[in-house]
């Protein structure tokens, strides 16, 4: 697996398949990226579980926060890691101890640990490193273009609005076969 470059299809398949996401290192501070990635993903229809021992039992972005991964009461599809790279092996070990196993380990922008990634991949998990799922969702849905960001995608298919909002887009497009 080439972790310097990810095909759009790989990222899209991950974000289309996962339904539940644990955010390890979610912050209660609304100025922190880990706060608004949590909030954004929840608003895009994912079921999000913040993980932060210091905030356990409280809410982050309106979501009940857990002390550890194993405290989350339902199966987790993706573990999104907002911790420095040297703390990743412990988070991956915790994730691999879950039953059922998660499908995806995702490390945020600037976070990368190739050894931990190999361990997760050996257990059958998909891994993404040094990317942000908020940016990737916005890039592949077309939302990120509203901010003048180069999505590096082009499509002649109409984007689909997500839910009842006027400014939320789906990852699907009209005319695409599922």
């Amino acid at each position: 697996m080439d972790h310097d470059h990810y095909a759009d299809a790989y990222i899209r398949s991950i974000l289309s398949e996962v339904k539940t996401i644990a955010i390890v290192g979610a912050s209660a501070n609304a100025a922190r990226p880990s706060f608004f990635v949590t909030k954004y993903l929840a608003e895009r229809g994912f079921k999000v579980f913040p993980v932060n021992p210091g905030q356990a039992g409280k809410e982050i972005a309106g979501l009940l926060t857990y002390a550890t991964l194993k405290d989350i009461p339902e199966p987790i599809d993706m573990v999104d890691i907002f911790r420095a790279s040297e703390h990743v092996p412990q988070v991956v070990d915790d994730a691999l101890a879950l039953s059922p196993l998660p499908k995806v380990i995702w490390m945020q922008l600037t976070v990368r640990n190739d050894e931990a990634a190999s361990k997760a991949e050996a257990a059958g998990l998909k891994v993404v490193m040094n990317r942000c799922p908020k940016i990737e969702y916005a890039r592949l849905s077309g939302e990120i273009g509203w901010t003048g960001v180069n999505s590096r995608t082009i499509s002649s298919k109409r984007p689909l609005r997500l839910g009842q909002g006027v400014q939320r887009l789906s990852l699907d497009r009209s005319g695409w076969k599922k």
Partner: protein
Amino acid sequence: MSDHTPGFSTLAIHAGAQPDPTTGARATPIYQTTSFVFDDVDHAAALFGLQTFGNIYTRIGNPTVSVLEERVAALEGGTAALGVASGHAAQHLVFHTLLEPGDEFIASRKLYGGSINQFNHAFKSYGWNVVWADPDDISSFEAAVTPKTKAIFVESIANPGGIVTDLKAISAVAKKAGVPLIVDNTLATPYLWRPFEHGADIVIHSATKFLGGHGNSIGGVIVDGGTFDWTASGRYPFLTKPRPEYQGIVLHETFGNFAFAIACRVLGLRDLGPALSPFNAFLILTGIETLGLRVQKHSDNALEVAKFLSQHPAVAGVNYAGLPGDRYYDLAKTYLPKGAGAVFTFRLKGGYEAGVSLVSNVELFSHLANIGDTRSLIIHPASTTHRQLSDEQKTLAGAGPEVVRLSIGIEDAADIIADLDQALAKL
């Protein structure tokens, strides 16, 4: 599309644009509206707090303008862009984001006259101090670096034309100094030259010129190359310090390799206000769809015209980098393999009086102060744009009394040459 990387012409037509989510409109609609409704109070708060992507108010962003932004970012190979009211506004916002009062920046002394004025006068009133350097002498850039230097600014092909800047060499000076290299790519356009591939960190455009290309709309674009590490130097507080305007967000940490474009938008455009009108953005976008076709024709025509002038008895010399033997010919071969652009100057043996007569004698060329129009344009700088300068200053600026500047259009080359031929015959 899949992970195949589209070519320039495909990006020029498609990048940033998608069928309208609501109506299915295929051409980019003109969203002629000041404001956009929020889903609810929470959505509004998230938008104002930079926590989600979306539209609030057209001074900050607009869906027609944002298609232009993404398209120019894609064509330049940058991470993001910001559309603004003019090329001058683009420069204003770039320097506002980088400099604090008392800081310095180094600029090539061979620039568009309007930029020289902006740097010498308007920027000085903000305490942003320009230090001039000579693009033909790279050591003058090195010598100009001080602890106060925050950026280096050059034009890729420099106005009034004919000058090709050695971007790789100047980029090396910028990297050594730890400052971003800003390149005005207006005259080259990304079709002829992509400065990010030669070490630029920020590209700006007067979209008024070749991007729009039809002489009908004023506009500017800032493109973020995503290449400069703002946090490493710590000298750019707009990007690396918690912003009180946004609950303490740190922009570089939050937006990574497109943080500079975001900073220009949310700290510059939002507060200083030079927004691009959606209608102008639409016209510029329409122009960009044919950018590659037009600029190739502009450039091919310019070479024909330059060859004609170089052999004309009334002409003392032609400054066009596409001509073999020109002092910039080798640099043009390196950086501009598809052509040396459409704007250049030539010198008349008859001096000032001949220049004044020539602009009167032409019938196809338009006598005006713009460049990068489909139409061929002519100006005699000494009697117009540079009139207020002394003769010595005129010569230093490449605008001596005998100099005429052309912006070659995309009419038939034979007709452009015939017009110059008849006008020169009357001198």
